[in-house]
């Protein structure tokens, strides 16, 4: 199919250069780039989570310390923050009720 686009000069130059370097016709280079763009995952997508075995072993050793009670963190500030959020929520609700 024949079609016409208005594209930025610098982009066209870059694609032309790439086509020359790769020994391709401009139209083939553009088609390939468009195909690659369409096949690429969109923002985010299914992220594959990979972790190095050494890090996983380290994590599991640390987990054991928390489970056994050898390590512990009360994190009192977490409850304070939640309470602050609840107070703000109650204040907002009261304002709306006035």
């Amino acid at each position: 199919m024949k079609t016409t686009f208005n594209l930025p000069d610098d982009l066209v130059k870059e694609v032309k250069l790439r086509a020359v370097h790769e020994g391709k016709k401009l139209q083939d280079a553009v088609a390939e780039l468009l195909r690659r763009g369409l096949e690429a995952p969109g923002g985010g997508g299914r992220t594959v989570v990979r972790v190095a075995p050494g890090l996983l072993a380290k994590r599991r050793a640390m987990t054991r310390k928390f489970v056994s009670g050898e390590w512990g963190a009360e994190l009192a500030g977490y409850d304070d923050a939640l309470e602050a959020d609840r107070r703000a929520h109650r204040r907002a609700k009261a304002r709306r009720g006035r």
Partner: protein
Amino acid sequence: MGQLLDSGLWIVLARPRSPRKAKALVARHVDAAGACVAEPVVFEVLRGANDAESGLLSPYFETLPLLESPLGLWSDGVALGKACRAAGYCPGSIDLLIAAVAIDHDAELVTFDTDFEQIAEVSSLRVRVLAYPEAQGT
């Protein structure tokens, strides 16, 4: 695909007074190869930690993959918040950001917090709400 572990799981695991069965449940998820964290989760946990506690938890978090915050995190959070509000829900701001990261990466959010089910109702969030095994003793 990973499992994004919500802040509440880290609190349960870290606190000495948490029931042992609850800690064991969380530990199974933390120790899974697909477990990961996100910046809003790390923020929510560490903002409540003193220096000594941060000294334990920061290196722990570094052993997990960090789901990158999307460029549109804040606007995604706004859109989620509006969708929730239209449905009659009002989840916390940090919860909206955590959900936005999970949705962007299509990660399953593992949590004890049923508020995330409300966010899931109005979005593509995949959530697994764990039952807190409090009644089963320590």
